[in-house]
């Protein structure tokens, strides 16, 4: 009872702290918008769920199931990044140090935080459920609301998924090397893998329930069977898509419909889903093993070798503070004021040093290897793949741009400097472009030598676009997370999956796509400028 009360209050305080923030309202607004686009009209340029050119009639069972599955897919990605700051907040606010002195155990703490994460995500699911009900009525294909059919997929598909996501977010926060950028990027690949397993085997009903986190293996076979009953052969060739799929301009999805009244939620299905809650509890409990309990000595384990050496020597440094009181004579050389001086190049070098400082020798070795290989490999496809890797390698360096001042609390120092908006911000951007050129230069050089003008133009635009994206996202979000997620997604779909238009390493980008990158780069730079201008308080 005491434990339950403790967990409740720990989760409650954290939950209230989050939901009372202004950006939570914005998030809920975004969720409502997602609910709206997840149920497209009959004649639409996009589709969210398609089974061989068909879809279910928008009744409670179909809308509830389709929206719940899409919610599971999207919220398991977005939700992770939204809630992965529960422990960090306690660290930043120093509340953690107070909590560390209480009888609260590490397991209770990580469980409580996971519970709070889950509560936040559950609110979003609740909002999505209401949005789904409203959308069923808005589309008007079946005006009868069956509360259980609408609600069951949200309860039994989404909540178990998000319980796991909530616990994994806590685990990532406690494991030192997963806490920041590397963890953000790694989760994306974990999410991709978690999706691909059940998607690949969606027809194999009867598999182990723990193979299918997203729960698509529960609903899709029944949906396909219902479709097949109306349209024989429907879905047999595996022509099923889930997500946001767009048609070219002027073309529309006109999906034919079939009736589907939902599945029977058999006890074994429910039990299978509840097992994920158990998995979540185990993960949250596991996080306690890695949790440092805000112990500065254990935080020290996260320091680089150089920092550890410095910390070891810190105790030796006990002599004096400021220059000895009795013998203080200020003999600072006066500075000549050179108002017209322009030291932009030196500032760019300083920004570059700030970006690269602290990287290990291995980081440079891999970057150099990718640089050389992407220029030297004779096979164009392999070369392009290596060029792609060369531009994901510095993602954690770029992602600091624009957000570094907030992360290290140096805003007041930087922003009170002369011409911070017109010198420091552009210098940071140029340094980001230099990183792009230095890491991806091998491929660019090869394109230039090979006379691939279009490819080289695309490469140049990408070298400008990536730092611009990073700078704008960093300035506006004050965090590196947004860029890490969006850029990794872009990189995965573009250079790695060769999706047309967004593959910025393609030699066959259309003029329209090239123009898009140019306009996007300019827009992002303007956004970064305006964002920083707002932060400065003064123009």
């Amino acid at each position: 009872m005491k434990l339950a009360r403790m967990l409740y209050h720990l989760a409650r305080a954290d939950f209230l702290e989050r939901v009372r923030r202004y950006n939570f309202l914005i998030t809920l607004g975004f969720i409502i918008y997602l609910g709206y686009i997840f149920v497209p009209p009959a004649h639409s340029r996009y589709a969210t769920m398609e089974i061989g050119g068909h879809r279910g009639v928008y009744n409670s069972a179909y809308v509830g199931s389709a929206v719940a599955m899409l919610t599971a897919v999207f919220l398991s990605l977005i939700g992770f990044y939204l809630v992965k700051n529960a422990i960090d907040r306690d660290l930043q606010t120093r509340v953690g140090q107070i909590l560390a002195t209480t009888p609260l155990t590490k397991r209770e703490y990580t469980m409580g935080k996971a519970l709070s994460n889950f509560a936040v995500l559950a609110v979003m699911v609740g909002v999505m459920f209401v949005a789904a009900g409203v959308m069923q009525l808005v589309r008007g294909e079946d005006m009868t609301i069956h509360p259980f059919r609408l609600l069951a997929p949200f309860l039994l598909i989404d909540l178990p998924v998000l319980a796991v996501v909530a616990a994994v977010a806590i685990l990532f926060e406690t494991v030192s090397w997963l806490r920041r950028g590397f963890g953000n990027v790694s989760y994306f690949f974990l999410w991709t893998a978690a999706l691909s397993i059940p998607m690949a085997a969606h027809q194999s009903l009867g598999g182990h329930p723990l193979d299918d986190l997203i729960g698509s293996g529960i609903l899709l076979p029944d949906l396909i069977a219902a479709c097949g009953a109306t349209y024989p052969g429907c879905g047999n060739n595996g022509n099923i898509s889930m997500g946001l799929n767009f048609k070219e301009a002027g073309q529309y999805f006109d999906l034919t419909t079939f009736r589907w009244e939902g599945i029977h939620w058999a006890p074994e299905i429910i039990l299978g889903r509840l097992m994920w809650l158990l998995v979540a509890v185990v993960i949250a409990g596991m996080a306690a093993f890695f949790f440092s309990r805000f112990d500065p000595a254990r935080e020290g384990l996260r320091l680089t070798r150089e920092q550890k050496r410095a910390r070891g020597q810190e105790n030796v440094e006990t002599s004096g503070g400021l220059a000895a009181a009795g013998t203080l004579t200020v003999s600072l050389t006066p500075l000549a004021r050179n108002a017209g001086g322009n030291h932009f190049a030196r500032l760019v070098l300083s920004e570059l040093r700030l970006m690269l400082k602290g990287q290990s020798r291995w980081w440079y070795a891999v970057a150099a290897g990718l640089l050389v290989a992407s220029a030297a490999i004779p096979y164009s496809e392999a070369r392009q793949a290596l060029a792609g890797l060369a531009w994901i390698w510095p993602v954690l360096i770029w992602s600091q741009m624009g957000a570094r001042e907030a992360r290290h609390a140096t805003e007041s120092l930087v922003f009170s400097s002369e011409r911070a908006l017109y010198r420091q911000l552009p210098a940071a951007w140029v340094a980001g472009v230099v990183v792009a050129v230095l890491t991806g230069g091998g491929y660019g050089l090869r394109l230039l030598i090979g006379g691939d003008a279009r490819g080289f133009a695309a490469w140049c635009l990408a070298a400008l676009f990536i730092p611009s994206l990073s700078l704008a996202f960093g300035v506006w979000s004050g965090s590196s997370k947004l860029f890490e997620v969006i850029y990794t997604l872009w990189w995965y779909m573009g250079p790695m999956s060769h999706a047309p238009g967004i593959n910025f390493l393609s030699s066959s980008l259309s003029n329209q796509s090239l123009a898009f990158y140019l306009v996007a780069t300019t827009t992002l730079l303007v956004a970064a400028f305006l964002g920083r201008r707002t932060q400065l308080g003064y123009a």
Partner: protein
Amino acid sequence: MAHGENYLKLAIEKVGKVYSRKVWALRNFSLELGPGVLGLLGPNGAGKTTLMNILATITRATEGSVTWNGADLARQPDAVRAVLGYLPQDFGVYPNLNAVEFLEYFAAVKGLDAAAARRRIEELLVLVNLADVRKRPLGGFSGGMRQRVGIAQALLNDPQLLIVDEPTAGLDPEERVRFRNLLSELSGERIIILSTHIVSDVEATATDIALISAGTLVAHASPEELLRQVENKVWEWIVPSAELAAAKQKYLIGSTARRSDGVHVRLLTDAPPAGALPALPTLEDAYLYCLTSHRASVGVGAGPAPAGASAREGSAI
């Protein structure tokens, strides 16, 4: 440390700052400053940091104006940024940089000449006694060492306007004394604004004092003028422990100390009780007296006001 400019003037005129929900952190605040050290004193939440942020061009005033040698900061913030040294109350460092690299970065951000900056950084590191650890990453520095890096950063551009907000927070008593001496040495042809709620820091360095409470200027005077306000008003009185509570109800008490003969009480009053002996006033007495008088005049706060105290809201003593 002479700068060539003969005249430095920072004018704050009717400045107000409102935060969300119409909470005024500062209101109708006016002050004119020339070279010297201004000690900005006030209780927590008085509006000191808000004022510092406005003067350091971190945030804009909602109303009123601030001018630096005639240049309006709202229109020309770079006029003051070029000559500003700022040590905020809370600031961070880049943990992977060492002290030299960190200062070189800020020298570049401030647009200083490379050679002059290098020389200046070496001198500053000696001054703040970090020369021995100059090559160690800042991530391993203690709070006091980081504060000293902050002090060096604030002095990088040989500022004409130096703003230091709670600078001795995190420093040990010895370092505090040294920092006070450093401020005194620096105050030549420049304006230094020292914001703190530690009266002894101000006592040691300030040529001028501004008392601020609830976002308004309570008093602006020299330390001597402030002390004169409490001349013949400070008394030491010995009361039995049992009567202390009653004494607190009746008089404004500066401090108490238990001794074998009873509780030694420091009173601030025009009408001392029988047996009270006159005491030499301190700046802390003057601070307490002015704040309590001000609160009594505007009807804020509990406790007895010093008898005979007069209101001096927003005016120089």
